[in-house]
């Protein structure tokens, strides 16, 4: 051979290798070799891009809708007028701004007067959402074509008109000014925002520039100033930082998550679940990729050996198989992205009825996420077994038994685990979830290997004593003990993922539904005098209105703990956040907008003089959704001088049972002993309290009462009647908010269910790849058995028994693993209570047996339908 041709051989062009790779790829595709690998890869891309597209659009839509609840993206509130600089700076940063002033005032007509919740808005209000108006009381609503009312005009809620005995076009008086009532206000986006004073009656909307002339705002008036901001996310973030730095934490911009614990909970949990779901789907697809790639590579040992005899070097073989994988990747990304788009459209279509809002268009990011996922899957799961091909000995062309050495190294496992970790951390951005998943999977894997090994041994020993199909099945399981353990492991991890997700889904949705059941009260009544309680109870009963207990309510400030000045609860809070921002808690508070709720009314010792006032109550009965976690409840034989404290609040104040607390209520000081701690469900739309006193403690202190009621549909008009009968009470309407929350929860629940289905498909793919992985060996074994005279029925029965046995073991182990994982996920991630799921101990093993047996038998049916001669000839070739 000439030197020239020798050097030509040394530099085999990449083009030639790519050509070889593409031909192998094409033929493998036609022969079905690559189908499962490609399918697994497509599955990974589809699930990730589909879920990413859906969550991308849904989250933006939900944020948009949530922003409507604030009438802005961010809100800043204060009792004193905040500096105008805040608005001008925001405008300079390209943000839209609006502002309003809220205050309670009396409004008069010629016929009567009424306490209203006035809101004076600037021209740009609302920045998000719409104002809905009507041309007559209780009339048909339409979207107002401008912002708020023009100067000299006011818009009022429907029930103001009958209360004042006026019509549209009539005049009302507010302070020193008179206004024309030009429209009926049906809905404002941020109606539920703000404390009691902002919502202390029906709404009157006016122009901000009209406020000075009314002279209703005097020094000392209870007024809330709110600045609203909307714009690009990044600009909002920058601005938020600027406000924090510039004003040293005095002002804080809130978003919807700060404003509503209920929505925030639903969104956060939903997002965690979607993320967990897509994570499971990808990891399962990853396992399927690893299994199929391994099988593909095992079937290509001969190829690699022949290529080596023809002069291919190890590196050239790596290039050929790398090209094949790249082509598969490319195809998977293209097909998976299209399928992902289809999947997310399908989800959207299914959810059409519960997503009333138009979704913003998708960004390109989900596709990038999908492609990157495929790349990680490729490198972590598929590449190692294929690159191991380069180690194939060319001697294999002479001796076939030189097969398995390259794949027995730990490399594929190391790569797989590393890739899995990268994916988990990348998706969750949460080390806790990562730690839980990794700990669960690895401990389960170790325990399972040992357990399934033992079970297989005892199970097969028992099987050996049974009939011939049993014997055949059990000896097959035993012969492939290592493989069987691996199969049980993969099956049980797959079933475990499915069970975990299924259980979480069920509990999550049940929890949401329990949070806001259908008969959740949707109106708060406050400022009820004690002499009005009995009459109101009669009124509600007569009108068939569902109501709840009346709680006495009064404002109390904690002065001392065990003789020491009481700390402010937020002193121990790094972020300075309130413990809760639940609607109910807010509603019970007289103020909540300031950077702190503390009153600066009195200077107490050497402290800054800030005493935090809380609305407190006393009752003999532990309120619903309250759970005692320490100490004892006083019950019916209560003694005065005891207090029960909400657990988080107690922790912030570092209280212990037996501590002596001194409160100031009005002009009096009251000393009580802490006798119990409670947990409170803040998101249940019920009156909730940090401090509950024992009956008799606060009897001498005057109080008003608080209760909740459920007004459904047409009952709403009774509100006017109620307010006419008891004009001094304050009614807070939260029905619109509840409806909004329920809609969001319904949306998230549906999404959660779809994700579970997707994971199910990924799981099925893993099961199929795992069964397929042993197909070659089964073909060989069963061909020999059949040539030796074993009947078709015997072989099928033994296959059925073998797979059912493996499925049963996997189901049992998966159930155990799932219960443990669900426990940690619920307690640590979703902050739910854990209850063991007894039914799953039946469903898990049963499902394992049925699924694995049917999948296994179905996939191996060919083993008995192909002629033994054809199999043996094929194998010897």
């Amino acid at each position, binding site marked *: *051979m000439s030197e020239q*041709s*020798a050097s*030509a*051989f*040394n*530099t*085999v*062009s990449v083009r*030639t290798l790519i*050509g*070889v790779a593409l*031909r*192998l790829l*094409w*033929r*493998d595709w036609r*022969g079905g070799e690559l189908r499962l690998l490609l399918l697994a890869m497509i599955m990974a891309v589809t699930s990730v891009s589909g879920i990413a597209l859906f969550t991308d659009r849904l989250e933006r839509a939900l944020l948009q809708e949530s922003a409507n609840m604030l009438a802005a993206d961010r809100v800043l509130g204060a009792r004193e007028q905040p500096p105008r600089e805040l608005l001008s700076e925001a405008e300079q940063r390209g943000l839209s701004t609006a502002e309003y002033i809220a205050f309670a005032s009396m409004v008069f007509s010629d016929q009567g007067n009424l306490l209203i919740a006035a809101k004076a808005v600037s021209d740009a209000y609302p920045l998000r959402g719409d104002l809905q108006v009507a041309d007559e009381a209780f009339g048909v609503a339409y979207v107002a074509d401008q912002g708020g009312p023009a100067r000299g005009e006011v818009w009022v809620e429907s029930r103001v008109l009958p209360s004042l005995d006026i019509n549209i076009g009539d005049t009302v008086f507010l302070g020193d000014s008179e206004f024309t009532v030009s429209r009926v206000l049906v809905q404002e986006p941020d109606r539920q925002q703000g404390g009691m004073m902002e919502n202390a009656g029906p709404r009157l909307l006016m122009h901000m520039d009209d406020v000075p002339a009314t002279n209703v705002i005097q020094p000392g008036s209870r007024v809330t100033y709110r600045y609203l901001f909307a714009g690009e996310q990044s600009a909002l973030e920058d601005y938020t930082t600027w406000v924090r730095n510039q004003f040293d934490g005095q002002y804080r911009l809130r978003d919807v998550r700060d404003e509503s614990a209920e929505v925030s909970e639903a969104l956060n949990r939903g997002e965690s679940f979607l993320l967990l779901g897509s994570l499971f789907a990808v990891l399962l697809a990853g396992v399927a990729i690893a299994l199929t790639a391994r099988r593909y590579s095992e079937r290509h040992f*001969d*190829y690699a*050996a*022949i*290529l*080596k*005899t*023809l*002069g*291919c*070097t*190890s*590196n050239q073989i790596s290039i050929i198989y790398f090209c094949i994988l790249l082509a598969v990747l490319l195809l998977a990304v293209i097909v998976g992205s299209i399928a992902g788009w289809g999947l997310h459209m399908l989800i959207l279509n299914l959810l059409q009825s519960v997503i009333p809002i138009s979704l913003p268009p998708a960004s390109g990011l989900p596709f990038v996420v999908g492609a990157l996922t495929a790349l990680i899957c490729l490198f972590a799961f598929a590449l190692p077994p294929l690159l191991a091909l380069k180690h194939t*000995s*060319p*001697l294999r*062309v*002479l*001796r076939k038994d030189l097969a398995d050495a390259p794949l027995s190294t730990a490399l594929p496992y190391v790569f797989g685990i590393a890739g899995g970790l990268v994916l988990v951390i990348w998706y969750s951005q949460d080390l806790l979830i990562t730690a839980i998943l990794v700990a669960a999977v690895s401990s389960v894997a170790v325990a399972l290997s040992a357990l399934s090994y033992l079970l297989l041994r005892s199970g097969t020993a028992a099987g050996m004593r049974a009939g011939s199909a049993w014997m055949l099945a059990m000896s097959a399981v035993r012969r492939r003990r290592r493989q069987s353990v691996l199969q049980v492991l993969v099956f049980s991890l797959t079933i475990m993922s499915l069970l975990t997700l299924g259980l979480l889904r069920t509990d999550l949705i049940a929890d949401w539904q329990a949070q806001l059941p259908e008969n959740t009260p949707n109106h708060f009544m406050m400022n009820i005098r004690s002499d009005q309680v009995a009459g109101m109870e009669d009124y509600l009963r007569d009108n068939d209105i569902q109501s709840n207990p009346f709680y006495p309510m009064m404002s109390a400030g904690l002065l001392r703990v065990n003789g020491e000045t009481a700390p402010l609860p937020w002193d121990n809070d790094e972020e300075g956040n309130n413990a809760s921002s639940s609607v109910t808690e807010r509603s019970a508070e007289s103020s909540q907008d300031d950077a702190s709720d503390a009153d600066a009314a009195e200077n107490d010792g050497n402290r800054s003089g800030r005493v935090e006032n809380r609305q407190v109550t006393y009752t003999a009965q532990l309120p619903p959704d309250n759970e005692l976690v320490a100490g004892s409840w006083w019950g019916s034989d209560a003694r005065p001088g005891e207090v029960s404290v909400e657990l988080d609040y107690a922790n912030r104040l570092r209280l212990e049972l037996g501590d002596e607390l001194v409160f100031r209520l009005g002009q009096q000081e009251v000393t009580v002993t802490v006798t119990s701690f409670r947990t409170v469900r803040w998101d249940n739309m019920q009156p909730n309290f940090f401090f509950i006193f024992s009956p008799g403690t606060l009897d001498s202190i005057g109080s008003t009462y608080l209760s909740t009621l459920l007004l459904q549909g047409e009952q709403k008009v009774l509100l006017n009647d109620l307010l006419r009968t008891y004009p001094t009470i304050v009614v807070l309407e939260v029905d619109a908010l509840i409806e909004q929350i329920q809609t969001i929860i319904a949306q998230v629940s549906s999404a959660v269910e779809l994700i579970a289905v997707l994971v199910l498909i990924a799981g099925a793919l893993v099961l199929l790849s795992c069964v397929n992985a042993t197909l070659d060996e089964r073909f060989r074994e069963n061909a020999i058995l059949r040539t030796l005279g074993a009947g078709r029925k015997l072989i099928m029965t033994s296959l059925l028994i073998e797979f059912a046995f493996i499925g049963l073991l996997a189901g049992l182990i998966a159930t155990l693993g799932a219960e443990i994982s669900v426990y940690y996920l619920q307690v640590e991630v979703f902050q739910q209570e854990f209850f063991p799921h007894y039914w799953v101990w039946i469903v898990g093993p049963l499902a394992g047996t049925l699924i694995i047996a049917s999948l296994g038998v179905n996939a191996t049916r060919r083993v008995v339908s192909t002629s033994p001669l054809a199999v043996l000839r094929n194998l*010897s*070739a």
Partner: protein
Amino acid sequence: MTSMVEARHLCKRVTTSEGELVILSDINLSISAAETVAIVGASGSGKSTLLGLMAGLDSASSGDMLLDGQNLSTMDEEQRARLRGQSVGFVFQSFQLLPSLTALENVMLPIELKNDRNARQKAAQLLQRVGLEARVTHYPNQLSGGEQQRVAIARAFASQAKILFADEPTGNLDTTTGAKVIDLLFSLNKEYGTTLVLVTHDDRLAQRCGRLVRLVAGEITEDVVAGDAVHV
């Protein structure tokens, strides 16, 4: 005459659970260019192992193995692969065609690996030469055993190898087909002037070679040139 293949004190040992097993012991053998050599022996005598060592598919435990003047014992697998690509062709008992590729593509492969732009044309000519011009687009599983072996022979000659190793080339074929395939192999060998080393059980096939080397329990017991008988 220059040596195409030369084994010097070649030994192959493997370690098994029952201790060390000597497969080839002190093999000394020299094969000249254009020679045709049959290696015969009973099953387990080490003939396939010797073929593997001579072709650079495996490495010896001790001793030197020279192929086309290059010492395989001092080369790593990458270098041996290149040498195989340059100088060696194979014909196997189980044909070893790539099932994913058509007959034409199988024959094209070694030519393409040499960056030859005329791979398709040369492969088609070779297939015509082995009488398979009508089967170029067929996949191996669509061909009979004899046809597959003819494709394998065409592939072996496609790389213009200096030396051809054949491992039981008729082992999977019936007598008539086997005879036809052997005729073809020898005729092409003569045409291309290639060195041919074949391992076989088949005495009639061995008789067609110019030299016969007999292995018994890993040792050469007989090395005869046609018409001559030399016992070692």
